[in-house]
């Protein structure tokens, strides 16, 4: 996992609530055995019509959204399945942070393990972001702040361990493996 310290980008805004993982990546793309190349499947049925032509007014197809690394979405983003293909698809497409008023538990956990930053903000900040698509914002992962174009820095909550892993680019398996003695002791005590 690559270290993630700052993100500076314009925002793409998807003003829909309860965006589920089936919308983020439909199940027919889950037959892959790789993590790579899922960007094409991202929001597939929202981005493309039945004839595979891009849907012109879908946010990610608009010219001004090209190159955006931050997605702002409605409440409860990422609800539904545990498919890690959802953050893999977002990352492969080029999204590095998702901002909402609430982010579903499993999606958040999966995102943090892949270097995709899930950010929960208060409803006022969220309303401003929804109303101002394309705003240039800066995320300081170390300080856990989101800075709006007018210079206002909004602090967002993040688990200390998850932040440490993001900032250092550390994957969590290494940390677990350091606890093998404790795991062995636990197994012995219970058997």
């Amino acid at each position, binding site marked *: 996992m690559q270290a993630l310290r700052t993100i500076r980008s314009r925002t793409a805004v998807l003003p829909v609530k309860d965006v589920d993982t089936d919308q983020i990546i439909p199940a027919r793309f*889950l*037959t892959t055995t790789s993590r790579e190349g899922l960007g094409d499947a991202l929001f597939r049925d929202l981005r493309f019509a039945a004839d595979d032509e891009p849907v012109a007014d879908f946010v990610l197809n608009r010219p001004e959204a090209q190159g955006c690394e931050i997605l702002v979405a409605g409440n409860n983003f990422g609800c*539904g399945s545990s498919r890690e293909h959802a953050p893999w698809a977002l990352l492969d497409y080029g999204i590095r942070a998702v901002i909402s008023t609430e982010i*579903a538990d499993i999606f958040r956990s*999966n995102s943090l*393990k*892949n270097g995709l930053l899930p950010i929960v903000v208060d409803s006022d900040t969220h309303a401003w972001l929804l109303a101002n698509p394309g705003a240039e914002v800066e995320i300081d992962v170390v300080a856990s702040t989101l800075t709006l174009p007018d210079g206002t820095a909004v602090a967002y909550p993040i688990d200390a*361990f998850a932040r440490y892993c993001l900032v250092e680019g550390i994957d969590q398996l290494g940390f*677990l493996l350091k606890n093998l003695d404790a*795991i062995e002791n636990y197994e012995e005590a219970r058997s």
Partner: protein
Amino acid sequence: MPQTLFEKVWEQHVVVPETADTPAVLYIDLHLIHEVTSPQAFSLLRERGIAVRRPDRTLATMDHSTPTTPVSSFKDLAVVGESAANQIVQMETNCRDFGIDLLGFDSDRRGIVHVIGPELGATQPGKTIVCGDSHTSTHGAFGALAFGIGTTEVGHVLATQCLLQRRPRTLAINVEGALPKGVGAKDLILAIIGEIGVDGGTGHVIEYRGEAIRGLGMDARMTVCNMSIEAGARAGMIAPDDVTFEYLKGREQAPSGAEWDAAVKRWRDLGSDDDAAFDASVTIDAGKLTPMVTYGTNPGMVVGIDQPVPERAGDPSFRKALDYMQVESGQPMTGQRVDVVFVGSCTNSRLSDLEQAATILAGRQVADGVRMLVVPGSQQVKKEAEAKGLDRVFRAAGAEWRESGCSMCLGMNGDTAARGHLTVSTSNRNFEGRQGVGARTVLASPATAAASAVRGRIADPREFGEQD
């Protein structure tokens, strides 16, 4: 200090306690794996030269991308699509290389992972159970702490039999009173999700409590816990009791003899203490419930079958959902024309689910123009249903009787509905495109699904009278 069921199970599995800086190391008793969310985890183990720590605590099957077309021999099963076929081969290779027993195509114990875990007696009270699948919450019906994880975490469990976890909060859902005649577990859980919302359980483990819950059999309890994730909760639990023990006794992987007695004694102590505190609680009056159907594109958009679709002016997401579903506020869901009826999925594919559907279909016909698929949750369920003659009831009514698997719940095996078609489905998600690109889904109980199949329109199963 009094403790909840969740707290007892959690504490018994803490290998290293959490601190402000680090999450807890939590021991996992049972790891269920399937073909869709495990390949990348095995790849990680290969890259790092790590073995599977406890193959004996790993239960593997194939269910998501597997075909359910009826065959006389499993050799004839034709997997839809090259990549799905490759994924299945990969699963076989991974299990062989890492020493994991696989309940594969030729196994008569194969089935949906959340159906076979309980069926084999591998799911037990007090266990921690995980799977790369959000409906792992199903196993909480036995008083296990069971939740879905991503593929990276599947790798963590394969490598260490542990997960890094922050302790979630607790939410008590008290279901008082008794369910009226003709109203079942699916109606109850849909009503609960409608009440607390699709994010009402986020960050929490739910414990379902109260008279109505105690009155449910194990299949029904699994239906309730299964959909905890649809309310945002990773896990839902029910305290084990005699109903639980009766179900488990004598099953292949359940303890036996003196070990059984010791286990039951231990399990009886798992229930929440009388004055245990929950972080939040909700009370539902079971006596007021009716059959429920969804009208929108998430399981919280649900209404009593005799009620009109509500109105939520000024909410574009709500409007978008109604447009997708081609329904209007103020109109009831009953009477909507049905194209497909699906009875199956880890929510409603067990023997008693199939019996409910068969009770209504017996001596009746699936309406002209309606395709009905009945997909048993496992090969064992299939065998038991056939022993009771249910397959003959379904076939005589004009429904398709299939091999086991996830099938149309997520439509990744070729079982899908066409664009615009409306499916009354006993599964768990009515998300846009879930059952096929542009397909529309109405979630309902097996009884409502069967009633709708007969009428060709969404119908109230109470009209048929036989349901209890």
